[in-house]
């Protein structure tokens, strides 16, 4: 069978369409939110939250409930919690994230070991599996990524001002605390949308990689976010297709593809002085 025929065949399956729709939704929202998080030096929040998502999935599996049902409130709550810890300065932000990630991982692992018989299920949640994406996940992904996009469009100017210079944003009466809380909530939501297609342990990569790659290009703020979305879309769609053809886990394929793009861009820019 030619490559083209295989390509056409991929789209004859309903699960492939569902995976692509979820993938595109995750790609857009994670790249958008990720650009702000990386520039605000909050990139590791995504990493910490993905561990919380793992614990939430474990809880869901133990109680035989839909993991996403547990994940959403738990991850969103943790996101706001870490942001607050960061602000009070009683605990260093990165230390707080480290504590949260380790605690959540320990809790999740303990729950998994007591549960015993759901290892295959768990594997698909850890690294993403396009076969497990249901119709409800598709609606969920479209709905929430719509919220993320609407938020960024509505508050783009305020978000830019506060990301560049928080003090200045405050004196121009921008409600920085409220926007930070919104950003934290939507980060949590983005992590949860990505659990099915990318997996809890790798979703944080999709928050960090596209933004970091886009930053290698010498663009302004709008341009950087646009590029970040484009890179995210390309790696997610190509990664999903590759994972279908090669029978790899979708999450790891997407992250490897992101890593490849990053190294190519970074090396050509720094070794061969290519100006993008």
């Amino acid at each position, binding site marked *: 069978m030619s490559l083209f025929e295989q390509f056409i065949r991929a789209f004859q399956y309903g699960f492939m369409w569902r995976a692509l729709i979820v993938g595109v939704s995750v790609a857009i929202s994670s790249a958008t939110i990720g650009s702000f998080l990386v520039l605000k030096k909050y990139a590791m929040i995504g990493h910490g939250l993905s561990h919380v998502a793992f614990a939430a999935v474990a809880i869901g599996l133990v109680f035989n409930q839909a993991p996403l049902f547990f994940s959403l409130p738990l991850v969103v709550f943790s996101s706001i919690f870490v942001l607050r810890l960061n602000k009070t300065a009683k605990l260093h932000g990165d230390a707080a994230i480290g504590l949260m990630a380790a605690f959540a991982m320990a809790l999740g692992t303990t729950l998994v070991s007591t549960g015993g018989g759901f290892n295959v299920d768990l594997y698909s949640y850890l690294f993403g599996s396009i076969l497990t994406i249901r119709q409800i996940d598709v609606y969920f992904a479209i709905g929430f990524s719509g919220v993320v996009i609407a938020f960024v469009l509505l508050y783009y100017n305020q978000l*830019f*001002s506060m990301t560049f*210079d928080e*003090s*200045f944003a*405050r*004196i*121009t009466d921008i409600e920085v605390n409220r926007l930070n809380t919104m950003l934290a909530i939507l980060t949590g939501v983005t992590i949860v949308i990505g659990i099915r297609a990318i997996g809890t342990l790798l979703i944080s990569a999709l928050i960090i990689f596209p933004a970091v790659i886009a930053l290698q290009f010498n*663009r302004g*703020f709008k341009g950087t976010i646009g590029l970040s979305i484009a890179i995210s879309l390309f790696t997610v769609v190509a990664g999903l297709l590759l994972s279908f053809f090669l029978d790899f886990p979708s999450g790891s394929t997407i992250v490897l593809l992101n890593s490849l793009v990053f190294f190519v861009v970074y090396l050509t820019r720094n070794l061969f002085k290519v100006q993008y």
Partner: protein
Amino acid sequence: MMDHDKLITVEDITVKYDRITALKHIQFDIFPGDFIAVVGVNGSGKTTLAKSILNLLRIHEGRVVWHNGTKIGYLPQHAGLEDRHFPATVFEVVSSGLLKDKAFPKWLNKADRNIIFDMLRLFDIETLADKRIGSLSGGQQQRALLARSMVMNPDILILDEPTNALDQESRGRFMQLLKSLNLENKLTIMMITHDVASVESYANRILYLEKHLLFDGSFEKFCETQPFSPYIHTHPKRFDKKGETS
């Protein structure tokens, strides 16, 4: 003076960081047209005072009153430039002074763009509009950040050590720019600096801070009454006046 003549009143404020007191019972008014230099050694509370006036800190006692909707512009010490690779163009940075009420779908309109480009022209950075802010020289960056505040059409501009990172030539140019904004645009200025000599020919008022407000008056008076402040001995004027007798 009547209250309505004042822009800002600092009413007996005390500010603490945990248990350390940064400012004690500071009280003064800012009047339209003032060019105030706030001087003091490191840790004397200069930046804390600026942040208190800007409402960026919790004030433990007293209060700061902005009279009649006073609009304040601010040039912080490192304004977003700790990250030299921050992906923002000069135009984007300057436009952030106008962004507060510009929610989707109300983006910048033509009038806004005109204001921004007028300001870029005034500060001689028009040709740099599409360049990344981090790629500019120190002097150009300061002018871009000044333009960001100026598009807000502020009544008063607060600057925290704005000339620190500048070379001698840019420093002089920047101070001239401030002076002309002060005289021609009637912009009130409050500038924090550790170098009192640099503001001699610009400021009409010196506030000398050492957690308390030790002095509030003209530069001449400052030289006379504060001869032992850590600045004056490095200043030539002091030697003119006191050199022969000491």
